[in-house]
């Protein structure tokens, strides 16, 4: 894959010098800070609502570190995944429409290297941002609550990350396949909701990556679970989708 190193260096510099450094990392750090605080304040907020309605009594157990982690994972499962879909929709189609891909691809940069670099650079950004967000969440949680169950949060985040990397590969495929960023984003949202829907079906959740989102939540409630099928199929699917994206982009005329 000629040109791989030079293009990866460009991608990483671009992340550092443009809006890309702020969106996903910013979201993760924000949720890392706010999740424990929201968890701590939620009972007080609910009680204040209850006092405004005479006769209504709400019993809420005191918040714990686990509530903070659940709040953080919920944000990852919803908002961060949607942000990955939206930002990933333009990774290839954006370069195509702006003409930057033409200048790069008429040099000794293979289209396969172009696609792989896109997947790899986004994955690197996500891994670093997730590690940072998780560390912030753990630190703030330790201040607000007694530090407990950190290993479970790390496990849950790691499982989420496997699914998120698959989503990055899927979005790169859609971005290579569709002419417009909007169409790629639409297809990505369709994929996201479809996996949520199919993940509710027991056999699919047990034997495929579709069960990863559910597994993430189970990890937080300290349920031990076999994860071999989910992880293996996610890794294989990521590879297959990346190769498919390379094939589609190879055939596409620019």
């Amino acid at each position, binding site marked *: 894959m*000629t*040109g791989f*190193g*030079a*293009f990866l*260096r*460009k991608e990483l510099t*671009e992340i550092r*010098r*443009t809006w890309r450094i702020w969106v996903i990392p910013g979201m993760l750090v924000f949720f890392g800070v706010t999740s424990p605080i929201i968890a701590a304040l939620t009972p007080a907020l609910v009680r204040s609502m209850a006092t405004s309605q005479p006769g209504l009594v709400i019993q809420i157990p005191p918040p714990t570190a686990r509530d903070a982690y659940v709040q953080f994972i919920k944000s990852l499962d919803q908002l961060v995944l949607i942000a990955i879909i939206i930002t990933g929709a333009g990774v290839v189609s954006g*370069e195509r429409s*702006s*003409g*930057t*891909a*033409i*200048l*790069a*691809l*008429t*040099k*000794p*940069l*293979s289209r396969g290297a172009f696609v792989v670099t896109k997947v790899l650079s986004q994955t690197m950004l996500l891994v670093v941002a997730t590690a940072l967000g998780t560390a912030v969440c753990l630190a703030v949680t330790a201040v607000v609550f007694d530090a407990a169950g950190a290993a479970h949060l790390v496990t849950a985040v790691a499982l989420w990350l496997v699914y998120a990397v698959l989503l990055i590969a899927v979005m790169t495929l859609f971005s290579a396949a569709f002419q417009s960023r909007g169409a790629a984003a639409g297809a990505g949202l369709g994929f996201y909701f479809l996996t949520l829907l199919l993940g509710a079906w027991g056999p699919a959740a047990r034997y495929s990556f579709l069960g990863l989102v559910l597994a993430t939540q189970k990890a937080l409630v300290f349920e031990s679970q076999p994860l071999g099928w989910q992880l293996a199929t996610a890794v294989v699917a990521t590879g297959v989708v990346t190769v498919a994206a390379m094939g589609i982009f190879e055939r596409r*005329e*620019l």
Partner: protein
Amino acid sequence: MTDDRSDETAAIELRGLSKRFGDTLALDRVDLVVRPGAVFGFLGRNGAGKTTALRILSGLARPTAGTAHILGHDVERATDTVRARIGFLPDVPGFYPWMTAREYLEFAGRLFGIDQATLDARTTALLEMAGLASVTTRIGGFSRGMKQRLGIAQALINAPSLLMLDEPTSALDPIGRREVLEMVASLRGRTTVFFSTHILADVERVCDAVAILERGRVVASAGIGELTARAAANRLVVEIEGETGVVAVADALRGRSWLKSIETDGRTLRLAVSDLATAQREIPAAIAAAGVALRRFEIEETSLEDVFVELVGGPGGSGGPVQ
């Protein structure tokens, strides 16, 4: 100048090259040979097929039929070999706006695997050539002319054997256009330059040879001098004594098999002919038969514009105007 040659490998060789988009035939069995070292103009109206041909040559699109070779290599098979030896500038170059000109040239050079010392020297020289050496702002703030000059510089970073430019001056103001043409002219003798344009003056100014593309077909390909001389041989100016005989002479000539067109203006007749020798015999005879005296009979001087208009049918055709 653009004929087949067996003693040296052609910089570009197209054989029966066709490209179809649905019902539209963008290129129709194009045959073209560009000799190495030439500054070659690829002239045609907007929509004639120039960009499609360049996209195939640069590996961005595939032909429907036929072959395209660059420096002896099939562009479909030897993609890496071809890309390593060409420089390409599309009609609207897209740069990363967050980079500086120097950073972009370094990025382009790294894609070619050029070592750092060579890259540093080449980047500095190319920035000088492009008039961007003192510019430290990011490309996002560049004018169209600056981007075009940077575009040529990035296309030269690998010291290419063939530089392909797609409409490099089409959207520039007169000063930007002059700067780009001067850059192109300065490359004469150092590399083969193949550039598409619909601006006749640009071709006349910097090109050694030209091919004219019309509706996807090459309608002429030769050195500029040869092409204008060839066309001139088919255009005659005849002046006679007195205005009264002009109509009689024109009427006498109309309908002759060798006559393509005839215009009258006062005492002058302008004729386009298909058989010069026959015309040279029959026109004086027709003038004598009409009983008028011949004052001037000469082959008309022809510009590239005349050749172009004659070949593609004038600016009112299917494409955009030719400047």
